[in-house]
């Protein structure tokens, strides 16, 4: 597996994948700085919950496209260079697929880890700390990103035109955003982009008379986390099966 990962990371050379993730993290960082600067503590309470919500929201906006672009980068080089046949002579078809997923998991893990680090930094600065909340943040974001990755990979691996998966992700981003503002519809439960919203266990009380906003925590939606994990596993198995048959036809 180490060899396969080594080969896989060499393939990503000059594709600016790491730069893409770094830029995305930078945007998230700026957004958090912006949203947490000049807070009027007379007007609201629950900064810890606010930071959590903000991170989920920014992820809804920028991460789907980043993940889609990442999946595209992993797959398009193989299609353009007609390399699946060559690789299949050196490794099992299954391991080609596993290699792609492994690189995906590692990159997404690091991407989430950096975000979690921001969250902890904010916590230190604002004087709150909850290992449990940090852990759940990490798990939630990681799971949603992984679901998005598996979804995108399913298209990118054999799509000659890599614009299609990108457009799908842009559409998904909008659908994900709507799910924040249309809580009465169950849309967010049936699309992977909606799960940033589903797994964000915060609520807002806004009192229009005193103009006081209260951000609070709700119970963690473990059920939906399990649903999401089941989806990831199913999507993984489906894509792997399809990959193996597709490669034979190429």
């Amino acid at each position, binding site marked *: 597996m180490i*060899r*396969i990962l*080594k*080969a896989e990371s*060499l*393939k990503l*050379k*000059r*594709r600016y994948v790491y730069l893409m993730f770094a830029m995305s993290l930078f945007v998230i960082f700026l957004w958090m700085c912006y949203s947490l600067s000049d807070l009027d503590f007379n007007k609201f309470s629950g900064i810890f919950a606010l930071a959590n919500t903000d991170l989920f929201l920014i992820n809804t906006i920028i991460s789907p496209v980043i993940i889609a672009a990442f999946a595209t980068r992993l797959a398009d*080089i193989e299609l*353009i*260079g*007609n*390399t699946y*046949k*060559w*690789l*299949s*002579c*050196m*490794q*099992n078809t299954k391991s080609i697929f596993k290699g792609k997923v492994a690189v995906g998991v590692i990159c997404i893990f690091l991407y989430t880890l950096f975000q979690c680090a921001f969250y902890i930094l904010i916590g230190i600065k604002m004087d709150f700390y909850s290992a449990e909340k940090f852990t759940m943040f990490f798990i939630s974001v990681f799971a949603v990103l992984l679901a998005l990755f598996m979804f995108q990979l399913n298209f990118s691996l054999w799509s000659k035109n890599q614009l299609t998966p990108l457009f799908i992700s842009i559409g998904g981003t909008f659908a994900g955003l709507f799910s924040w503002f249309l809580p009465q519809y169950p849309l967010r439960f049936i699309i992977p982009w909606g799960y940033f919203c589903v797994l964000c266990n915060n609520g807002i009380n806004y009192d229009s008379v005193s103009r006081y906003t209260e951000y609070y925590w709700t119970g963690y939606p473990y059920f939906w986390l399990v649903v999401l994990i089941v989806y990831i596993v199913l999507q993984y198995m489906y894509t792997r099966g399809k990959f193996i048959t597709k490669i*034979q036809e190429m």
Partner: protein
Amino acid sequence: MDNQLIKTQELTKIYHGRKVVDNISLCVPEGKIYGFLGPNGAGKSTTMKMLLGLIDPSGGKISIFGKEMNRKNRISILKQTGSLIESPSYYGNLTGYENLKISCILKKLPFSEISRVLSVVRMEGNKNKKASQYSLGMKQRLGLANALLGKPSLLLLDEPTNGLDPAGIHEMRSLIRSLPEEYGTTIMISSHLLSEMEQVSDYIGIISSGKIIFQDKLLKLQELGSESIIINTDDNLKASSVIKENMNINPEMSNNGIILPFMDNTTVSQTVKCLVNNNINIYRVTDKTKNLEEIYLSMVKENGL
């Protein structure tokens, strides 16, 4: 009899109900060059893909290095095999050198192999150029370099001269010819051109519409070229009737001269003597071999293509 390195039994591939490869039994002897010939769409690439385990056969068996080719053995068989199938494969964002590095990593080979194969295919000068900027011939050379990594004992090359210039074809040919001598490599190489195969192969297999229509030593194929003898004289008409009367042979008249069926040396000298005795001046007596291309074409035509 030579040791058979690749053997197939009733190998068949069916695509959409059509037998693209039909019951073929290949024998590729060890340490020899096997030319795999056939017109477009004959099933050459399909056969080679099955040999590499890239596609599953619809029926039949393949054994390579004495091991049966199946999902389990595949990678261990392929470790000792280099291949180049159809269009070249490469990562456009990587340089030629980095492309070969991928293979070395996956095949557990030392990176020192890379410079060796690059010099074999004369690509040292372009090793730091991105593969997307390579010409077709350069990509093909990169593919060949890739196949040569690790000195494999078996090479499967599908139309390796595709896209090469005449000098490149010549180099490729001498390279291919040198490998069995130097390393004992067995090579199976496909092509549409018999003239090309004739210059490198020891054995020839001809496939047409998925069926093997010839498989044997190149010499055997050459023997099939039925020879004839052409005699030119100052009076072909008279000569023809003299031969008919005296030699009991039925000559055929053509613009090139009198065509006689193949004869042994004594019969030829008797014929000539007879003509001289009848006061006919002989200009030349020549052997005519039906060239291999004609044999090949007539074989393929017979098979209905």
